[in-house]
């Protein structure tokens, strides 16, 4: 490659990398009042790095210490002191405990079902770093990561709904109960208006039942005239879980088909997903509980790894990259410089992927996944440089050494990347929660590391090698310069 071409390429690449780095980390004002937020701030963080929300669900008949004190102190006629019995940090009403102070078996069974179902519902949301814990034996404490995709109070209220799922008319009269006999599953769908809704897959019995329900609904609805003079018949159908209407939609004709899309007007997929989790969990009769759960308020908490943990992790990566770059350049000179360019490309592409892929959430295990892939990238670049040095030591020319060195490295580089990629892919398919997200990050990182090790660093090396007069010294090798390149 000619010197001019090489300089031009380097200038272009530096401008591209600087541009990527700028949009990755810099924040600047656009036309007032808008601001450009850096890509790095779009990376979703788990509870350990970004904090989140928690709430405590109190079943009917169980109240907090604060509520008990309020009852006792605010109302002189209150019989709360006689009605409630202290149990650890909460108070249980006499509906929950019998005269001997023992918790009634019926309450215990119902609460156990509610707790199990709540665990399944939040597990179904696949949050990174969430937890559903038993607190004081008869309350449920739930922690979820910070999110802007849905209203938190609605989310907690919705997932705490008790009772069976059913379609009802506008008066709340049940028209069709949703059970595993009638519905095989519910998933998210996108309507023609761009909003999200629910797709119900019916069994053959369910299809018939739904056709009857919608037919009855339409036949009982009143006709209305449109502006073009045509007569239209429509009715509103509601989806209830227990006493709560979680969705409403307009039906214009009887629907007799195996799958039905019910538009809910959800602007975010996450909000629709919450209803999907709720309805799916209510399909199985064993998972239906009648105990009302109340989450009076929710709380916002700081990251469990400490305040600004996400920022500190980013700074630690920056410091490590700097140490690594200095080591590489001192140890391998020109080759090290090529590696630094390759690594910067790797880092920036990683930030772009993490910021733009909405399905990725960064947690502490994900940080370790990034560390592994960064180690892969550095390890195999240095492995290639070591092989080049060994080939050069055998007396080959620099060009031949580079070619032979890379040829010697390529098999192992591919082998290890394939191995890590396969392991990450398997984990992302099987694991849930924090490990699922870490495995997804590992899949992305392994692909980027392979591309940067096998392609980008090598490309930069060839481009940089065209610049110096003393190419051998540029690679930190020692021999009388007589040749090539």
């Amino acid at each position, binding site marked *: 490659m000619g010197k001019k071409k090489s300089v031009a390429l380097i200038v272009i690449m530096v401008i591209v990398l600087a541009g990527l780095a700028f949009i990755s980390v810099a924040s600047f004002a656009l036309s007032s009042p808008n601001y450009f937020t850096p890509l790095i701030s779009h990376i979703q963080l788990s509870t350990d790095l970004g904090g989140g929300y928690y709430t405590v669900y109190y079943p009917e008949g169980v109240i907090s210490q604060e509520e008990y*004190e309020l009852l006792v102190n605010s109302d002189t006629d209150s019989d709360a002191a006689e009605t409630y019995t202290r149990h650890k940090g909460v108070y249980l009403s006499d509906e929950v405990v019998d005269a001997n102070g023992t918790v009634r078996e019926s309450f215990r069974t119902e609460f156990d079902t509610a707790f199990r179902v709540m665990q399944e519902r939040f597990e179904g949301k696949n949050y990174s770093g969430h*937890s559903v814990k038993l607190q004081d034996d008869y309350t449920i404490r739930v922690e979820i990561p910070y999110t802007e995709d849905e209203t938190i109070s609605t989310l907690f209220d919705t997932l705490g709904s008790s009772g069976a799922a059913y379609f009802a008319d506008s008066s709340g009269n049940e028209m069709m109960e949703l059970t595993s006999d009638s519905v095989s599953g519910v998933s998210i769908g996108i309507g023609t208006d761009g909003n999200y809704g629910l797709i119900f897959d019916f069994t053959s019995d369910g299809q018939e039942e739904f056709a009857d329900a919608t037919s009855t609904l339409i036949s009982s609805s009143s006709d209305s005239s449109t502006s073009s003079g045509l007569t239209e018949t429509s009715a509103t159908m509601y989806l209830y879980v227990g006493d709560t209407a979680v969705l409403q939609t307009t039906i214009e004709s009887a629907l007799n088909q195996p799958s039905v899309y019910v538009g809910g007007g959800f602007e975010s997929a996450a909000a629709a997903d919450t209803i999907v989790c709720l309805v799916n969990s209510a399909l199985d009769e064993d998972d239906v509980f009648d105990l009302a759960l109340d989450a*009076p308020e*929710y709380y916002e908490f700081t990251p469990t790894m400490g*305040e600004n943990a996400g920022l*500190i992790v980013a700074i630690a990566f920056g410091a490590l990259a700097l140490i690594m770059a200095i080591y590489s350049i001192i140890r391998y000179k020109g080759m090290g410089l090529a590696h630094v360019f390759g690594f910067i490309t790797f880092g920036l592409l990683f930030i772009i992927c993490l910021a733009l892929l909405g399905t990725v959430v960064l947690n502490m295990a994900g940080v*370790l996944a990034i560390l592994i892939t960064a180690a892969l990238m*550095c390890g195999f670049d*240095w492995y290639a440089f070591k092989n080049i040095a060994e080939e050069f030591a055998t007396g080959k020319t620099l060009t031949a050494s580079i070619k032979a060195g890379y040829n010697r490295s390529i098999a192992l580089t591919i082998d290890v990347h394939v191995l890590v990629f396969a392991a990450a892919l398997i984990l992302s398919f099987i694991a849930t929660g924090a*490990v699922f997200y870490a495995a997804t990050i590992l899949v992305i990182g392994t692909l980027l590391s392979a591309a940067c090790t096998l392609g980008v660093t090598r490309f930069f090396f060839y481009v940089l090698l065209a610049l110096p007069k003393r190419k051998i010294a540029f690679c930190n090798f020692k021999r009388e310069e007589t040749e090539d390149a």
Partner: protein
Amino acid sequence: MRNQKTVFWINLVVSIVLIAVGAFLVGFVGFNGDSTTSDTYVIEVRDMLRLTDDARDALQEYCEGELGDSCTVLTSKASESSATGATVLEFSVTADSVDDLATIAESLETSIASASIDGVDATLVTVSYHESVNAPYYTYLWRTAIGLGVSLVVLFVYAAIRFKLSAGLAITVASVHDVLLTLALVAICRVPAGVGLIGVATFSFLLSAFLNSFVFGQVRRMRKEEATRDLPASVMAAEAVRNNRKLVIMTAVFAAVFCVILGVVGLFISLDLTWIMLATLIAAVVSVCSSLFLSPSMYVVLKG
């Protein structure tokens, strides 16, 4: 050859003893004292108003000091109510029983009532307590364990095909060994790393496979090259270790530097970060040792 065998047996015996001790501790004493793997007692201090950052920090510091006199504070967490803006501080503490916890809470409430804390109106502060039962994480843990198990099978098949059976076996055994030994050492050192340890176990598994591949990649190359293909396995293994030692150590050193940086920062912002980084550091050290000592010597033993 004899030397390699000795190295292998010493490694194996030491590892088995440590893993057995770790397993004993997990089985009889519990994994560690953190808030996610064992049931915990929590003291909750609530101010009905939204406190300023300074007032919140002052209240938190005061409570930690007071609680420190009667129990050990494992973690503390600040949060804010969505509805009222009330500041809530939660202290995860050690206590002998719920009754003991109630006494500690009562004593803290009395103490706060008579104290003068900048920016805090003591009459608005309430203290309550809770027992929080460990979330079992069964689904999460067993699915990850199955994922790691399937990955292990894939690792063995791939490595056995690419590096030959004995090398594939050595890499696979080393990976399992590293995960188990890391968890055992974390249990023995009583590092309260929490449920994030599953991430450390995954890290340990992959780092081990990665570092071992450096060594066995060289062994495979030596087996292919005419000048070295007839060398005995012990010489090949020793040569591979010698050639790749620096590379393996440097790669691990960078991972370790990262752990140390975050671990030290964790001392100031949250001990959870320090513990998870300490566990990761243990994983990195174990992986280096196994790729330089255990797996090459095991390969020699397997090759006879």
